[in-house]
C-alpha cells in the first residue's frame, strides 16, 4: 500500500497561490460574522497565516479561507451550522503559517449556546479553562475568536 506524503510548512509566500481572491464568505450574506487574530508565543500578531473553516450542512461541506492581514486578523461570514445530535454547533478550523510544519486543527463554539456547550462531548471532556479557548466571544454583532499558538492561553489544538 502506498505510504502517505509528509506535510511541509505553507511558508511565507502562500498568498500568491492560496489567497489570490477572497474566499471568506462561507455563506454569502450570512448572519454570523467571525473576526479574530492569530497570535504567536510572544503575543505578537501573525501576519502570514491562513485560516480555513469547514462546516457541515445539508448541502455538503461549506468551506472558506482567509489570509491574515498585517495585524494578524482574519474574518469570515457564515451562518450558524446545525449541530449533530447531542453536540453543540461548531465550526472546524485549520491554521497554516510559516513556522508550522503541519497545519493546526481547532474548533469554534458559539457563546450563545451555553446549554448545548455544557453537554457537548468534546467541550465537556476538556478542562474548563481549555474549553474556554474554543468558545468565541460576542462583541458588537461579531464573534471574536483569537487563536493563540502558544502561551498560557494557548488554544486547544486537535490531532486529526
Amino acid at each position, binding site marked *: *500500500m*502506498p*505510504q*502517505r*506524503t*509528509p*506535510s*511541509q*510548512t*505553507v*511558508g*511565507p*509566500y*502562500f*498568498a*500568491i*497561490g*492560496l489567497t*489570490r481572491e477572497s474566499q471568506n464568505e462561507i455563506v454569502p450574506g450570512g448572519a454570523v460574522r467571525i473576526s479574530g487574530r492569530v497570535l*504567536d*508565543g*510572544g503575543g*505578537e500578531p*501573525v501576519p502570514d497565516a491562513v485560516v*480555513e473553516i*469547514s462546516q*457541515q450542512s445539508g448541502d*455538503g*461541506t*461549506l*468551506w472558506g479561507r482567509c489570509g491574515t492581514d498585517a495585524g494578524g486578523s482574519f474574518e469570515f461570514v457564515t451562518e450558524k451550522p446545525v449541530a*449533530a445530535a447531542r*453536540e453543540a454547533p461548531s465550526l*472546524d478550523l*485549520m491554521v*497554516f*503559517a*510559516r*513556522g*508550522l*510544519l*503541519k*497545519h*493546526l*486543527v481547532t474548533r469554534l463554539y458559539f457563546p450563545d449556546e451555553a446549554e448545548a456547550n455544557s453537554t457537548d*462531548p*468534546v467541550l465537556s*471532556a*476538556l*478542562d474548563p479553562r*481549555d474549553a474556554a479557548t474554543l468558545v468565541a466571544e460576542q462583541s458588537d454583532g461579531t464573534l471574536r475568536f483569537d487563536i493563540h*499558538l*502558544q502561551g498560557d492561553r*494557548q*488554544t*486547544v*489544538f*486537535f*490531532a*486529526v
Partner: protein
Amino acid sequence: MGEDVAVSAPLDEIDPPLDYPDYRSTALRAPKRPLVVAPDGFRDLAGPVFGGDDVGELDHDLTRQHSGEPLGERITVSGCVLDEDGRPVRNALVEVWQANAGGRYRHDGDRHPAPLDPNFSGAGRTLTDDEGRYEFVTIKPGAYPWQNHPNAWRPAHIHFSLFGRAFSSRLVTQMYFPGDPLFELDPIFQSVRDPKARERLIAGFELGLTQPEWALGYRFDIVLRSTPFE
C-alpha cells in the same frame, strides 16, 4: 487538561514534529502543549468538494499566464493523487505556487535580490481526473536564500496544497527535485525525520514523461490520508 480526551497525541512518524528548533520560525509558533486527541467524528468529517467552476482552463499551465513565456527550464510535473489504500482521489483540488527560475517569488515579502520575471506569476491549480491524475506545466524554480541561519538556502521546490475527500486528508507540502545538493542542509526538508518519508517529497525525473524538443517530465505522486467512506 481533562482526563477523558486530553491525552497527549504526538503526530505520527510521517509528518514532521511541530516543535523543531532547527527551523527557527517554529520557536514562537509551534504549540508547546500537546495536541488533544480528536473526537471520533473529526476524522470522518467530509471535506469541501470543488468542481470545474473553481479552476480555469489554463490554470494548470504556469507558462501561459502572460503575453510572453517565462524564462527558465520548461518542465511538466504530473502524477496521481491516491489515498493510503491505493485508491485514486478524484476531483481533488491541487494548488501550487513557486519561485521563478531565479529563485524569486512574486510576493512583497520576498527581498531576495534576484529579478522578477514579468511573464511568471508562479501559481497554478487543477482538479484530478477520474484516475486521480493531475498535470502542471511550469518552469523549474530556483533555489533561494533565507534568514534561518547563516548562508541558508532552500532547495528548489514547488509548494502543493491538496484537498482530499475528508477533512482529515487535507495536505500542504513541498515537492523537491532529485539530486539537490541542498537537501542535507535544509531544516524544512530534514524536519521529516524518516528518510523514507523524506524521499516521498522528491519528484522523479522520467524520460517517458519528457516531451522531445519541449519539456523535461517530473513525476510526483501524492498520497493522502485514507478516508473511512467513499
